[in-house]
């Protein structure tokens, strides 16, 4: 460990780490600074977590010079990868680490959101647990705030603890300007242009939940982050109308009938909105299911 200079070419500083992050399947990792790795404070507690901790650390910091058989070497190599991952989870929530991951995020190195309405928003890697070897890595989309499985199987086997449960949330705490604008745009299942009742009822209910949240936020004077913040009620109506118009383009029918239907639907929509208000008010008395109706209102 002391013979730092015995290697013939000591000018490279991160041989192992370079190899590690550039090898196939490790595209999600960023390179940890030498300084960070050599600060013992950053490694607190990891010696109990990693087998052959000292050798593994030597390997990661390129000072490994133990003569051993291949089997041993393989074991240490595995430990080194594990150690690197665990340090990585800590490193990426540090200032340097966050900015490195941010660069990768901007380049969409972690892939893009598969949800159609997210318009290929870049993803972030995340763990579902901070304890190693429990859950593989998942991808988080900041636009729809949901988690997705990685597309490729070589990523699906990476341990989620190497990224941790907090990183992606901390990133947006540190860089609030990067929080993407939210959109209420969504897919509505249809049969020959008509909404399916069960799904449409669920959509209406969900819209109620959303409006409730936006009202709460507005009361607290917090930005909701949706486009068209001011006119949220009108906003929704417009959306619905747009949808309907789109419908009528898609469905082949006489222009006259289409126009009539459009008008009718708009009317119904308006009245439905009204009705929902009434339902919220009358509901608890009618059925004694206060809690659910409360959540609608």
């Amino acid at each position, binding site marked *: 460990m002391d013979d730092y200079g015995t290697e013939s070419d000591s000018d490279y500083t991160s041989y192992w780490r370079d190899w590690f992050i550039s090898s196939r399947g490790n595209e999600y990792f960023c390179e940890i600074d030498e300084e960070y790795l050599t600060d013992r404070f950053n490694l607190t507690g990891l010696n109990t977590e990693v087998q052959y901790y000292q050798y593994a650390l030597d390997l990661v910091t390129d000072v490994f010079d133990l003569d051993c058989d291949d089997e041993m070497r393989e074991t240490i190599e595995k430990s080194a990868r594990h150690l690197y991952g665990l340090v990585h989870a800590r490193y990426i929530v540090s200032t340097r680490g966050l900015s490195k991951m941010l660069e990768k995020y901007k380049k969409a190195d972690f892939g893009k959101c598969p949800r159609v309405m997210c318009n290929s928003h870049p993803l972030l890697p995340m763990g579902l647990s901070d304890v190693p070897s429990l859950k593989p890595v998942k991808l988080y989309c900041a636009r*729809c705030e949901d988690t997705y499985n990685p597309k490729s199987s070589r990523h699906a086997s990476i341990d989620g603890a190497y990224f941790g449960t907090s990183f992606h949330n*901390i990133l947006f*705490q540190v860089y609030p300007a990067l929080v993407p604008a939210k959109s209420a745009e969504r897919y509505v299942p249809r049969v020959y242009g008509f909404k399916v009742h*069960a799904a449409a009822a669920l959509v209406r209910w969900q*819209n109620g939940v959303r409006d409730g*949240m936006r009202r709460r936020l507005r009361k607290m004077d917090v930005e909701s982050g949706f486009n068209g913040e001011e006119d949220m009620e009108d906003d929704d109506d417009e959306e619905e109308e747009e949808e309907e118009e789109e419908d009528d383009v*898609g469905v082949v029918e006489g222009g006259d009938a289409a126009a009539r239907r459009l008008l009718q639907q708009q009317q119904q929509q308006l009245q439905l909105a*009204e009705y929902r208000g009434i339902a919220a008010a009358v509901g608890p008395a*009618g*059925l004694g299911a206060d809690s659910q109706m409360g959540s609608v209102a």
Partner: protein
Amino acid sequence: MSTSSGTPESWISSFCSLLGHEYFAEVSEEFIEDDFNLTGLQTQVAMYKEALEMILDVEPEDDDDEEDEEEEDEEDASGDLQDGAAGRAHGERRHHSRVASDLSVIESSAEMLYGLIHQRFICSRAGIQQMSEKYELGHFGVCPRYNCNQTRTLPVGLSDIPGEDTVKLFCPSCLDVYVPPNSRFQTVDGAFFGRTFGALFLLTFPEYDLSRSGAETAAQLTRTTTDDLVMIDGMYARNIAPGLGRDKIYEPKIYGFRVSELARSGPRMQWLRDKPDDMTILDEARWFAYEHGEHGPDSDDDDDDESMNVNNNSTTTTTNNNNNNNGSRHAARRRLAGHAAQRQRRQQNRSPMNVDANGAESEL
């Protein structure tokens, strides 16, 4: 799997076995040969007749059965005659006259035509059956969303008009659409599947167990055993978005602490993955009846028929309704037999409310 000619060399089966065409069902020849099924496509596809002949592997003019030779012949003999008009004059040698560029135009027309027929076919009884077999085999992939637990998806289009968007995958568990993971599907037109298929599939096979497997399903079963067979809005409650709801929403946390809704970066999209704990709340028509009737939930037993009937009658009621009180009353009686309150309400002729009920029901 298909009822088509069966020879592995038919145009349809070779088209369906192309890379990236894994989502396509093999449209049966009977379906294509029925002119009714092709209504209106003539104007949408260039070189319609030739394209149709190519799909059905029929030789133009003379109806011999040598299916594979057509292309080769055309290749060889393309120089013999200059243009199509000349060829047409020469009856039997007509198909030899097509030049190579012509052939590629026909080929792409045929693909377009096949796609448009396919859009209609998969909504027919035979087609949707075939697609359900493909679905069972997992040909369409699974939902990428973590909380959907690998639910199998269905191919859908976002438009019925070709050339607008590529094929997407509809997840019945979260009722959302996703981009297929493999880029080879980004050349497949979404209109070849159409907007209707996904939703129609769920309505056609209401008994499908959408949530596929795993411990999560088992856990869910204990929670929903009671309403396992409850019908809501014409679907089994357990099949309405099983991947959504309270414990299927991602909860952002930092070091174990939930991020507040009031934070700038706090959760804003949870509604999208939310669902009522008690799904009966979505039965809007019944709610309406409760609220406007004086008797309570005494008619639970006719729940199922009721929500089914709404399907059939909604159009009738919509047309009858506006001024025609008698007509609407009749429709209402058929629909909600035993709901005296409903009838009473209509007698009072509270017109906005009248239309209102229809608004909720005719959403279908």
